[in-house]
C-alpha cells in the first residue's frame, strides 16, 4: 500500500485526538521500561567526569610528591618504588561488634601505622630533619587519601554500571560533591605543605605559640610542647604541637602529663572549625566541650581526663571551609589571631578567679609555626 501524505494529513485533521494520544503514550511507555536506564545514563556521565578528575588529582599529586623527594632529599637508593608501595597501604579498623575498649585499639592501630611510616621514611633518606620528615608524612597522607577516594568512587560507579543497578548509584551521586570538595582541598594543600607554610588549621597553634614566646618550653608528649606563663594573677599552662613541624602532636598525652604536675581549674581549647554554609570565613565562635578533630582518640582522652578530674572545657574556634583549613592560611584568618587572643583573655577573666590555673591548648597542625 502506498503512503499518501495528503491523505494522512487529512485523517490527522479529522482525528487530532488519536495523534495526541500517540504523542503522550509513547514517552510514557519508554519511561516505564527504560526510565531507570536513562536516569542511570545521565547520572553516570556526571559521576564519570568527577572520577576522571579524581584520577588526575591522584596522578598529579603522586608525581608532585615523587619529584619533591627526588629534588630535595638525598637517598641511598631510588626511593620511588618503595614510596609507590606506601600509596596502596590500607588500615583495617578494629572489630566494633563489642565497642568496649575500641578507642585504645584504634589509638594503638593509628600510632603503629604512623610509627611504621616514620621509621620507613627515616631509613630511606640520609640527614632527614624532623620538619622534613613530618612534611613527607603529610604529603604521603594526601596522596594516599586521594588514591583511596579515586579507587572507592570508581568501584561504586563500575559496580552500578555492571549490574545496571540505578539505586546503587544514588548514594554516590549524593556523596560525590562532598568527596570532590575534599579532593580539591587535598590537591591544593600540596604546595603549602611542600614549602612548610602555615595552613588554616594552624591558627590554634599560632595563637598559643605567640603566648609561648620567651617562656621555657618542655616536651609534654611526642611532638608536643608545653610551657608556663602568668596572666592577671593566674597561672597559664600552654600546650601545642611542636612547630614548625607539620604535626598535630599528641595533646591528649600532653594533658595527661600536665595534670600529673598540677590540676588546672579550666581548660580552653583553640582550634579551627569547619564553617556551616552561609557562615563567614574567619568568624570566631565560643562554646563548650573539647574542640579537636581527627579520628576521635585524642578528644576521647581529653574528655576522659577532664571528666575524671571535674575540669570544665571551653572552646574557641575560628570558622573556615575545608579548603581554607588545609591550604595556605588566608590573610583573613591570619589577621584574626590577635582578636582570638583577646577573646581568650576575656574568657579567662570571666570564667576564673585570681590564683587559679588555666590550661590553654592550641589544637591543629603547627606546620610553619614555631613557639
Amino acid at each position: 500500500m502506498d503512503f499518501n501524505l495528503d491523505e494522512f494529513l487529512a485523517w490527522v485533521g479529522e482525528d487530532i485526538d488519536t495523534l495526541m494520544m500517540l504523542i503522550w503514550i509513547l514517552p510514557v511507555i519508554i519511561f516505564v521500561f527504560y526510565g531507570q536506564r536513562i536516569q542511570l545514563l545521565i547520572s553516570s556521565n556526571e559521576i564519570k567526569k568527577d572520577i576522571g578528575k579524581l584520577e588526575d588529582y591522584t596522578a598529579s599529586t603522586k608525581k608532585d610528591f615523587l619529584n619533591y623527594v627526588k629534588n630535595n632529599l638525598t637517598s641511598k637508593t631510588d626511593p620511588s618504588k618503595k614510596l609507590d608501595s606506601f600509596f596502596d597501604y590500607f588500615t583495617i579498623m578494629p572489630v566494633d561488634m563489642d565497642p568496649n575498649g575500641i578507642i585504645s585499639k584504634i589509638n594503638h592501630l593509628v600510632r603503629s601505622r604512623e610509627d611504621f611510616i616514620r621509621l620507613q621514611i627515616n631509613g630511606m633518606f640520609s640527614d632527614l630533619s624532623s620538619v622534613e620528615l613530618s612534611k613527607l608524612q603529610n604529603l604521603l597522607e594526601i596522596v594516599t587519601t586521594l588514591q583511596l577516594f579515586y579507587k572507592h568512587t570508581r568501584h561504586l560507579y563500575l559496580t552500578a554500571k555492571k549490574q545496571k543497578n540505578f539505586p546503587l548509584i544514588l548514594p554516590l551521586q549524593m556523596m560525590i560533591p562532598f568527596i570532590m570538595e575534599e579532593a580539591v582541598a587535598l590537591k591544593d594543600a600540596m604546595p603549602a605543605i611542600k614549602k612548610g607554610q602555615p595552613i588554616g588549621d594552624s591558627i590554634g597553634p599560632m595563637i598559643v605559640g605567640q603566648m609561648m614566646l620567651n617562656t621555657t618550653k618542655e616536651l609534654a608528649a611526642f611532638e608536643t610542647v608545653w610551657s608556663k606563663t602568668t596572666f592577671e594573677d593566674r597561672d597559664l599552662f600552654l600546650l601545642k604541637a611542636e612547630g614548625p613541624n607539620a604535626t598535630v602532636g599528641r595533646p591528649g598525652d600532653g594533658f595527661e602529663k600536665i595534670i600529673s604536675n598540677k590540676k588546672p581549674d579550666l581548660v580552653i581549647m583553640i582550634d579551627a572549625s569547619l564553617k556551616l554554609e552561609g557562615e563567614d570565613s574567619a568568624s570566631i565562635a565560643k562554646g563548650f566541650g573539647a574542640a579537636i578533630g581527627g579520628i576521635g582518640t585524642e578528644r576521647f582522652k581529653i574528655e576522659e581526663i577532664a571528666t575524671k578530674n571535674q575540669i570544665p572545657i571551653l572552646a574557641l574556634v575560628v570558622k573556615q571551609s575545608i579548603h581554607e583549613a588545609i591550604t595556605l592560611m588566608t590573610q583573613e584568618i591570619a589577621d584574626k589571631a590577635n582578636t582570638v587572643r583577646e577573646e581568650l583573655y576575656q574568657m579567662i577573666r570571666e570564667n576564673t578567679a585570681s590564683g587559679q590555673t588555666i590550661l590553654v591548648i592550641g589544637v591543629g597542625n603547627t606546620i610553619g609555626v614555631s613557639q
Partner: protein
Amino acid sequence: MSKSKNKLSTCYTSLECNSCKILKKRKFIDEDFVFSFSENCSDCDGKMMVTKIFGVIMD
C-alpha cells in the same frame, strides 16, 4: 603559588622588629616560619620576627 578555580594565591610574610616595632611585608622565602627571626631591621639594630605567613588570592 597554588592554583584552584582560576585563582592564584601568592604567599606573603609579615615581620615586626623586636626593638622599634616597625612592620614590614614581603614575599615568602623558603626559610620563613612564624616566630622565627629571619633578618635584621633596616631602621635599627633590632631583629625582625616573622609574625604571620599568609596567602593573598588574586583572581
